């Protein structure tokens, strides 16, 4: 079995979500930045949406990986990397 694509996709969208949401939090309040997006703090809102999507993908992928680890003990090179990251 090749790499489970849900892990990198989940990781990327989680990171994107964190960056956008953090930037959105930092620029909260009345700011000329959000004039163009109609006063909506688009970074914060969409950052959270992306973070939720990314985490859903990531957790789904990790669950499959853990189930596979239980079936084949000792063969969890990818799983180890993932766990260290968390």
């Amino acid at each position, binding site marked *: 079995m090749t*790499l489970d694509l849900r892990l990198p996709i989940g990781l990327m969208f989680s990171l994107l979500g964190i960056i*956008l949401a953090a930037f959105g939090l930092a620029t909260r309040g009345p700011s000329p*930045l*959000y004039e*163009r997006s109609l006063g909506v703090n*688009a970074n914060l809102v969409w950052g959270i949406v992306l973070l939720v999507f990314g985490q859903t993908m990531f957790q789904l992928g990790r669950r499959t990986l853990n189930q596979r680890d239980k079936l084949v003990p000792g063969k969890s090179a990818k799983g180890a990397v993932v766990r260290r990251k968390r």
Partner: protein
Amino acid sequence: MRLTSIDCLILLLYLVFALGIALSFRSRIKTSVDFLLTGRTFPLWICALAFAGASISAPEVIGLSALGARYGLQAAHFYGIAAIPAMAILGLFLMPLYYGSKARSVPEFLGLRFDHKTRILTACLFALMTVFSSSISLYAIARVVQGLHVFDGLFRSIGRPASEIFLFAIVLSAIIVIVCVIAGGLAGTMYTQVLNFCMFVAGLLPLTLLGLKSIGGWAGLKASLSVPFMHEWKGALHANGNPMSFDIVSLCVGLGLALGAGYWFTNVSVLQPALASTDADAARRVPLIAAIPRMLFPFLVIVPGLMAIALPTPHSVTTVTTNPDGSIVHSIQVVSPEAAQGKGIVPAKIDPATGQPAKTAGGQAQRSYDMAVPNMLLHYFPTGMLGLGFAALLAAFMSGMAGNVAAVNTVFTRDIYQSAIRRGASEEPCLAVARWTTVASVVRSLGGVYAIARFESVLEPLILIASIVNAPLLAAVLLGAFWKRSTGHGAFAGLISGTVAAILHHGLTLSAETHPGIHGGWIRVAHQYPNEITQNVWGAVFAFCLGALVVVVASLATSPRSERELVGMVYSLTPRPEQHRAEWWRRPEALAVAILVGAIAINIFLA
């Protein structure tokens, strides 16, 4: 408005992941088979999203939103008539044949069904078309990079003129695609296509949402545009009744059959992901599942185009304020002539020779409709989201272009090199040939970029090349798959005559407001069409009809292959796929019906 460091960070993050996924396949590629094929081991959802991703391309995003800005909701025909029905039929009837014949490309299938010469001819035509559409992708992305001023700061700091940005963007994108495809092969390309698909939706969905919010929802959009713009089907029966000048024949036969089905049934780059599924049943489901997100694409692509022209056109404003102390202050807000002569936030096209807005042959101002979506991004997205939006456009570009290049690799190496140039060549040179094909096809497509720049938008050249290649190819594929009497000589003659018909049609006709040359009429102008889209759609009608007619006549004049040899390649002679005792609602047929009902519902909503 410039991209700031946070935008660049987001962009960089996307690029790192896209390249990283492709590079993770590097160690697995040992032979040309690893590089060009995938093995049939991919999960259904990856195949379906890669299928959806392969079909998104910069020409589609930029071109169809431009079409929306220019002609209104009629552009949605490209989804409702051209894409969805074709995808449903592909999944139901054609996929069992493609998958069951074990062919890995359309030329290979035609080689098995007909003969060797048909395979070579198809492969050559297909390679030509794909390289040309890569040119369109490169042009589109360079235009976006230029329009969003991504590299302006960098170029100013190193003291280079801004006019070099276009070339720089083309070369840079070409290098990214080459690295991605050479490192990942087809498998890596498919994986990045899934990522690109997600990125595309993540970047463009908020644009539609914000745009609709600002304009007052669907009702507000309807109120701010003229009636013909907001109806997909109003006056669709007659050419004078609708902005795009389609009539029922060009709409159904041209767009629905010759171009729509022609694209989905014969384009190797979109079919490859489906052929990587684990079994025939999954392969049939791939196009059907991919059709579900595709039904919503009019809202991601065409609606932003419409909103771009619904917004007020910027003008230079002078305000005079008299202060209490008696002093008078004039403040002038100047808008560039480009923006002021445009429509909405779609700028006018500037003639580089005069510096004035360019005019058509009929004296009307030309507009850069291609800039509709990039300008919408600039208009609505704050710093941060802007990087995401730009990454989404880049993802659409990478997805389509990498799919094209991977398909050319397969077709050239297997259908031209291994079957015609050096038959039975060993593995070692084949891998090298495949890798060099990647580089060669991208370099070749660089040459076409400046030809594309002379068209009004990127969709016209795309339809032109599809009418020359895909329309005749569709005639051969359809008659080969569904008529057991058709023969190799017939298909070969049909392909040649269809292609020649399309080229002659282009040489003999011209659209209003263009000059003879690359837009047609280079033999003499025998007929004038109202616009270039209609011109090329009619070209596809002629190519398909003449191609099909010649296939039929020439087949009847030659002797067919025995029915025993054609099992698995002709629908009527192929045993029906087993249904694995599935409940009725799990079968592909049920899914196809659901998709068609959904497509009809969306058509009614936009009607």
